[in-house]
C-alpha cells in the first residue's frame, strides 16, 4: 500500500527543488524533519505566546481591516485606498514578524538541543523561514480579503481588482518577511551574541512606539513618504493597480533602483545566517553581557520596605519583583514596549498640560478641560500592564524557589510585590511632577493635584493588582490567562475613561478635590487589602501544587489548556 504524499513532499521531490536546495546547502530530508517537528511543537504549544497570540492577533487584525474597508464608502481614489491598506498590512506584519522571528530565530533553548546535532545552518534557517512564510500565509488574506472586495464599490475599479490587490499584499508581505530576516541577519553579523536579545528587544520597542509617535512626530514624514516612489509600499501599489484605470503615477526607474538597493541589503543580511547560525544562537546561553556595576544605595529603601511590609520576606519579594521586571525576557518583550509607550504619552500630556491648570474656575465647558485631567488615568493604565503580565515568565521552572516562603509570612510577601510596583510607578512619577505642578499652578493647587492623582493612581494599581493570579514570574503564558488579562485591560480602559470625566467635574471645587482624593485613597487601601487577601490565597494554593512536583503541575497545565 502506498501512502499518499503531501503537496509539500511533492514540491520537495521536484528535481528543480532538490537542485536548488543542494545549491543552497539545504538537506531536504532534515528540512522535512524540522518542519514536522515545528508543526508538532506548535500544535502542542511549545511556542507558548506565539501560536496562541498569533491566532488572537489575526482575529484582531481582521476586525481592524473590516473597519478600514468602511473607508471605501467615503469614495476615496483607488490608489489612496490601496496605499492605505498596503501601509497598514506592511506595518502590522512588520510588528508581528519582528516578534515571531525573534522567537523563531533567536531561540537559544532550541539551539541548545540542536546545536550538537549534525544539522547544517542553511537547513535550519530554511525550516525557520518556512515557518515565517506560513505566518504570512495566515495574515495576508485575513487582513486583505474584505477590504479588497469592498474596493469594488470605488469608481473605476474593475472586477479582477481583489486578485491584484491580494497579489500586491502578498508581495508586500513577502518583502516584509525578507526584510525582517535581513534585519536579524544584520544584527547577527554585527551584534555580539550575548547582546542580540537586548538589541532585538529595543528594535521591537521602537516599532511598537511608532503608532504612538506617528501623530506628533512622524506625521510630516509619513505624509512625505506616502508620495515617494522610493518607499516599498508604493512599488506594491503599482502591482495592485495593474489593469485598473488608476495608475501608480511614479517613474518606474526610481522604484527599480530602490528595489535593487533594498534587495542587496536584505541579501547581505540573510547571508549573516551562515553555517554557524545554530552555534551563534546557542552561544547566547553561554553567558550574558556583564551587568553594569551599581553602587548600592538602597539600604534606606530596604529598611523602609522592611518596615512597610513587616517581614524580611516582604523585602525579598520587593527586590525579586523589581529585578525581574527589569530582566525577565518575557516581561520585557510583552509588557515593556507598551509601558514605555504610555510613559511617552504621559510625558506628552505633562508637557502639553502643565501650563493649563486642571483646576477650573468657571462653569463646565470643553475649554476648561486640561490634558492633566488625563494624567492620573493614564498612569492607572500603566499600572494595568505590569499587573496583567506579572505572573508570566519565560522560565517558569524557577518557581520552585517560592516553596521556601513560610506560609505564615505570605502577607508581607504579597505586600512586597505590591510595593515593587507602587513605589516606582506611583510614588516616583509623582515626585517627578510635583515641582513643575507647584511651579506652574502654585503650591496649593500643585500639591492638591499630586495628592488626588497619587490617590487615583494607587486605586488603579490596587484594582489592577486583583488581576495578579499567582506568584510573580512563575507561570508560562497561556491562552486562557491571556484572555483574562485582555478582558481586565479593556475594563481598565473603560474605568479610566470614566475617571477622566469624574476628575474634570470634581476639579471645579478645591473642597471636592480634597474630599474625592481622601475617598479615593481610602478605596485604594481597601481594594489593595482585598487584593492582598486574594493573592495570598492563590499563592497558598500554587505553593501546594509546586510542592507536589513538576508532574502534577504539568497535568494541571494540560487541564487548563
Amino acid at each position, binding site marked *: 500500500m502506498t501512502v499518499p504524499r503531501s503537496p509539500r513532499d511533492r514540491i520537495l521531490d521536484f528535481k528543480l527543488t532538490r537542485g536548488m536546495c543542494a545549491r543552497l546547502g539545504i538537506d531536504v530530508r532534515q528540512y522535512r*524533519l524540522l518542519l514536522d517537528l515545528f508543526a508538532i511543537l506548535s500544535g502542542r504549544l*511549545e511556542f507558548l505566546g506565539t501560536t496562541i497570540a498569533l491566532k488572537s492577533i489575526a482575529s484582531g487584525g481582521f476586525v481592524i481591516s473590516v473597519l478600514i474597508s468602511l473607508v471605501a464608502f467615503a469614495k476615496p481614489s483607488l490608489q489612496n485606498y490601496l496605499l492605505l491598506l498596503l501601509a497598514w498590512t506592511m506595518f502590522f506584519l512588520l510588528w508581528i514578524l519582528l516578534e515571531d522571528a525573534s522567537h523563531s530565530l533567536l531561540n537559544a533553548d532550541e539551539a*541548545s*538541543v540542536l*546545536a550538537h546535532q*549534525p544539522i547544517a545552518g542553511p537547513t535550519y534557517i530554511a525550516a525557520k523561514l518556512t515557518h515565517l512564510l506560513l505566518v504570512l500565509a495566515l495574515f495576508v488574506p485575513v487582513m486583505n480579503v474584505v477590504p479588497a472586495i469592498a474596493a469594488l464599490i470605488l469608481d473605476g475599479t474593475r472586477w479582477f481588482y481583489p486578485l491584484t490587490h491580494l497579489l500586491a499584499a502578498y508581495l508586500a508581505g513577502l518583502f516584509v518577511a525578507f526584510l525582517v530576516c535581513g534585519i536579524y541577519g544584520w544584527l547577527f553579523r554585527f551584534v555580539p551574541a550575548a547582546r542580540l536579545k537586548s538589541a532585538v528587544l529595543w528594535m521591537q520597542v521602537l516599532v511598537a512606539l511608532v503608532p504612538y509617535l506617528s501623530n506628533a512626530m512622524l506625521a510630516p514624514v509619513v505624509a512625505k513618504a506616502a508620495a515617494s516612489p522610493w518607499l516599498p509600499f508604493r512599488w506594491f501599489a503599482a502591482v495592485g493597480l495593474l489593469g485598473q484605470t488608476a495608475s501608480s503615477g511614479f517613474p518606474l526607474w526610481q522604484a527599480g533602483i530602490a528595489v535593487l538597493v533594498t534587495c542587496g541589503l536584505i541579501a547581505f543580511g540573510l547571508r549573516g545566517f551562515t553555517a554557524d547560525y545554530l552555534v551563534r544562537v546557542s552561544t547566547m546561553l553561554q*553567558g550574558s553581557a*556583564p551587568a553594569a556595576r551599581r553602587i548600592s544605595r538602597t539600604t534606606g529603601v530596604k529598611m523602609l520596605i522592611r518596615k512597610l511590609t513587616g517581614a524580611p520576606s516582604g523585602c525579598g519579594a520587593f527586590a525579586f519583583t523589581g529585578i525581574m521586571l527589569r530582566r525577565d525576557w518575557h516581561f520585557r518583550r510583552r509588557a515593556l514596549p507598551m509601558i514605555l509607550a504610555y510613559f511617552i504619552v504621559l510625558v506628552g500630556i505633562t508637557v502639553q498640560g502643565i501650563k493649563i491648570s486642571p483646576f477650573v474656575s468657571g462653569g463646565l465647558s470643553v475649554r476648561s478641560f486640561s490634558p492633566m485631567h488625563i494624567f492620573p488615568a493614564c498612569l492607572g493604565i500603566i499600572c494595568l500592564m505590569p499587573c496583567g503580565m506579572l505572573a508570566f515568565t519565560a522560565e517558569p521552572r524557577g518557581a520552585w524557589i517560592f516553596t521556601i516562603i513560610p506560609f505564615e509570612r505570605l502577607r508581607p510577601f504579597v505586600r512586597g510585590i505590591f510595593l515593587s510596583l507602587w513605589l516606582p510607578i506611583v510614588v516616583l512619577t509623582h515626585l517627578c511632577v510635583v515641582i513643575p505642578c507647584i511651579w506652574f499652578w502654585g503650591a496649593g493647587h500643585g500639591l492638591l493635584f499630586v495628592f488626588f492623582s497619587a490617590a487615583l493612581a494607587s486605586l488603579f494599581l490596587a484594582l489592577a493588582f486583583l488581576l495578579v493570579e499567582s506568584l510573580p514570574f512563575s507561570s508560562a503564558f497561556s491562552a486562557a490567562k491571556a484572555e483574562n488579562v485582555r478582558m481586565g485591560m479593556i475594563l481598565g480602559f473603560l474605568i479610566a475613561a470614566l475617571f477622566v470625566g469624574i476628575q474634570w467635574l470634581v476639579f471645579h471645587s478645591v473642597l471636592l478635590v480634597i474630599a474625592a482624593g481622601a475617598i479615593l485613597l481610602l478605596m485604594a487601601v481597601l481594594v489593595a487589602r482585598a487584593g492582598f487577601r486574594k493573592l495570598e490565597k492563590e499563592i497558598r494554593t500554587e505553593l501546594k501544587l509546586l510542592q507536589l512536583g513538576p508532574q502534577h503541575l*504539568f497535568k494541571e497545565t494540560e487541564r487548563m489548556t
Partner: protein
Amino acid sequence: MSHAIEVRDLVFRYHLTEALHGITFHLDRGEVVGLLGPNGAGKSTTLKILTGTLPPTAGLASVHGFRLPDQSVEAKRVIGYVPEAAGLYESLTAQEFLEFIGRLREIEEKALKQKISTLLEVFDVAKQRLQRLATFSKGMRQKVLIAAALLHDPAILLLDEPLTGLDVGSSLMIKDLLSALAREGKTILYSSHVLDVVERVCNRVLIIHQGNLIADGTLDSLKDRTKGDTLEEVFRQLTHTTATEPLVSRALEAMKL
C-alpha cells in the same frame, strides 16, 4: 593516521574573559580520558568546542580528522554528546524525541525503533516512553539524553557530567557501559567532578585549571609526579585546593550571622 581528538593552542574568549588560554592535548582512538578541573575551569567550554557548539577564538580543534568549526557538521556525525545542562523539547515524548534524533542521524526506521526500545528498557524508562519529557525527573531526562547520544553508535563520546541526577543502579550501569564501550574501541572524553568514577573508568586524565591544562597523563604517572596515593590527592595538589577547614568554619560563621 590522525588522532581521534586533537586540540592545539586552543583559546576561547567570551566578552573580555578568556576561558581557555591555549590548551593542547590529543586523544587516540580507543582511549578513555577523564577531564577534571574545578568549577569554571573550562571543561564544559572545551567539550562544547569539540562538539561544534562553540566556535574557538583561536587554535586548532579537530574531531575524527574533521576540523572545527569548518567541518562541524561532519564532526557532529561521529560524536555522541551528553551535555551538562539537559536541553530537551519538553512537549515531545521520550519516544518522539529519540525518533527525531535518530532520523536526523539517518538511522534506518526499523533499526531505530529497535534501538529506542532496547535503550529505553535498559535505562528503565520504557514505561514512560509515551509521556512528555516535561513530566520527567532530572535523572530520567539524563537517561534520555544518554540514550540520544548512543543511538547512532558514535565513534567518539563526549560526556559532560553524565551521571548527574542518576540513581545508584543507573550510575553503576553507565560506568560498566563506559568500560564496555572502551573495550569496543570507542574514544571517550569524560568530564566529571566525581573522581572515583574517573579513576575507575579512565586510563588517562587531563586536569584543567583556570583555563590552562595543568596535567596530562596516566593515573600512575600523575601519582608519581605528585606523590599522591589517590586521584583526589593528585587533584588537590595540582589545583592548589587548600585545606577545607578554614572555609567550612567561615561558612558556619556566616550562617549564624
